């Protein structure tokens, strides 16, 4: 047990900080739902960051930290699945990846090369050809898409499906963890600036305590995620995804509440994090699905 970063991990996180610096702020003239980041994606490709998990000195734990760090940015780029799930696929399956569950629109599907197609307990893989997918307008802060005709799906074995599901859970938790961090920071900034009744809102205890609870929940998500990425245990992955979806449901509500009407605008960046979180709340069976999986894994033979 040792929570200090190795020198390789520190170096990588510093490099990511530098890479992320130009992308920290939403462009002031952007008033859309999902902020695409092709330049960010290109820089990550050029720096070979999508392969972090495959480097023995770094591994999946560092990849999870990277996913989390990059989710602080207001830009939506397919990072989590590429960094944490893609290493589990054969070389013939190319990134970007999209997750399509039970026929619903999927994040990044319109630009993905490979789709993970989830149908109940089954998972299959499909190559995404241009012309087979169409973008879908949505309130979510991810570019969404759907298949315009039924894709040809290669079914995964039950063992592979379980393994993919585990890494999908870790990717989900890592992304939610980073998004919550950024959304909380953005709300703290608002509460520190906005004054009502002659005081900064952040001085009112009713809000301070709720924010503190949100911070504790989000910190818990982070620890569970990092542990799951490090151990690669099914139970740890399910607990991390459960705590992420469960905590996020509450946190997102509280954060929007604290911004008042400002939180409803496309001008304020909060939705760029919270409406990515909301898109993730339903994935992989939602919190009820994670809870059942976690109970099955963790209480077997209790």
């Amino acid at each position, binding site marked *: 047990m*040792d929570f200090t970063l190795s020198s390789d991990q520190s170096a990588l996180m510093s490099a990511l900080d530098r890479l992320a610096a130009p992308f920290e702020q939403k462009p002031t003239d952007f008033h859309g739902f999902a902020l695409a980041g092709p330049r960010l994606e290109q820089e990550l490709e050029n720096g070979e960051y999508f392969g972090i998990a495959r480097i023995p000195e770094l591994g999946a734990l560092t990849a999870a930290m990277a996913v989390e760090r990059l989710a602080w940015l207001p830009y939506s780029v397919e990072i989590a699945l590429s960094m944490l799930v893609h290493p589990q696929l054969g070389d013939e399956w190319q990134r970007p990846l999209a997750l399509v569950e039970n026929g619903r629109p999927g994040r990044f599907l319109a630009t993905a090369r490979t789709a993970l197609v989830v149908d109940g307990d089954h998972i299959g893989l499909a190559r995404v050809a241009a012309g087979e997918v169409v973008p879908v307008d949505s309130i979510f802060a991810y570019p969404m898409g759907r298949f315009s005709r039924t894709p040809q799906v290669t079914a995964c074995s039950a063992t592979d499906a379980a393994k993919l599901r585990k890494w999908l859970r870790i990717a989900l938790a890592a992304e939610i963890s980073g998004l919550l961090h950024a959304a909380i920071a953005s709300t703290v900034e608002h509460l520190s600036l906005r004054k009502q009744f002659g005081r900064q809102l952040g001085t009112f205890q009713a809000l301070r*305590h709720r924010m*503190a609870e949100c911070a504790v929940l989000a910190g818990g998500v982070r620890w*569970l995620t990092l542990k799951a990425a490090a151990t690669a245990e099914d139970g740890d992955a399910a607990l991390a995804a459960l705590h992420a979806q469960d905590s996020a449901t509450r946190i997102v509500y509280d954060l929007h509440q604290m911004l008042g009407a400002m939180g409803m605008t496309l001008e304020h960046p909060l939705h760029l994090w919270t409406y990515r979180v909301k898109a993730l709340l339903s994935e992989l069976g939602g919190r009820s699905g994670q809870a059942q999986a976690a109970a099955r894994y963790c209480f077997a033979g209790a």
Partner: protein
Amino acid sequence: MDFQWDAAQQEFRTTVRTFLEQHLPADWESLAHGPGSETQSTFSKRFCAQLAQAGLLVPHWPSRWGGRDADAWTAFILAEEMWAVGEPRGGQYMNVNWIGPTLMRFGTDEQQATYIPPMAGGQTIWCQGFSEPEAGSDLASLRTRAERDGAAYRINGQKIWTSYAGHADTCFLLARTAPGKTGMSIFLVPMDTPGITVRQIPSIIGEGDIHEVFFDDVRVPAGALLGAEGQAWEIARNALSLERVGIPRFALAACSLRRAVSALQRAGRLGQGAMEQSARALAACEAARLYSYHIVDQRQHGAPTGPEASAARYATVMAERLAGDFVVEHCPDALAGSDPLLLAHHQRAIVAGIASGAAEIQLNLIASELLRLPREPR
């Protein structure tokens, strides 16, 4: 970053578990729910002496005081295993975690020679006299006075909620020697000093846990002062920071949860709702565990403990609540005689947000120091 235990840590945990299997009596669980009771106190002296003999009472203390200079992880693994079975050390966990180390840091040679060896031998019980009827969260408003009287101090006042006071040998007492926050001092007061009266407060949290302690013209020699007059805040802060992650409550919460789930499974009564609820509670326990590990890791590396300790505390409070509520909702029979360990857990869980600093005070700290929100006006 590494989430695995190394071989020595695993071996140490196994040693502690084996010791517990061999030394906890068959009826241990029925003793566990009276943390300051006569039976528990007597038991803890026998048990802690055995722990001491096996080198498992104070391994993290310096060898000069009977330890073996083991690291922060060793101390925490030990605490986890003890707490997970219902804390057979009783009130002596306080000696091990913070009273002993505080005396090592601030005590005179004489105080150390008098008080540390009996702690290292598992032979003595202490109580902590901080809270007063008018001074709970706002500890700085305390009124108990210690006035210099020649070569002695004369103490007058009242403490409340004092755990283990009924069987304690010595009190780690906070009293006022001058007005204001800087006018507070710590005294090491033998509980058999004339003028001390202890009255147990009947409670829902187990026999002998909380007491009122009255000090009527209690005379103690000047040598009972720990550190200097007015140094109490510094000493108490130091002591409380050791205590903040000292109790791995999540360990008993997680064990209780497993036990409750297992009972429901055996009875064929673990429905989907209960199953999901149990997983939520377990996630909260594991989050609290990792938060606490983070603090232990900071200590291990000699880093100061920051506001993350408050976050760890609060995460633990949330976990205790979910685990405790699970048992109340799904295994109510445990609180009605069928499972003394689950009852003991319940009694500990309900005080998690109150004892050793209320949860809302932690939230204030988190808001100001972790989130850096502007402070409340005073």
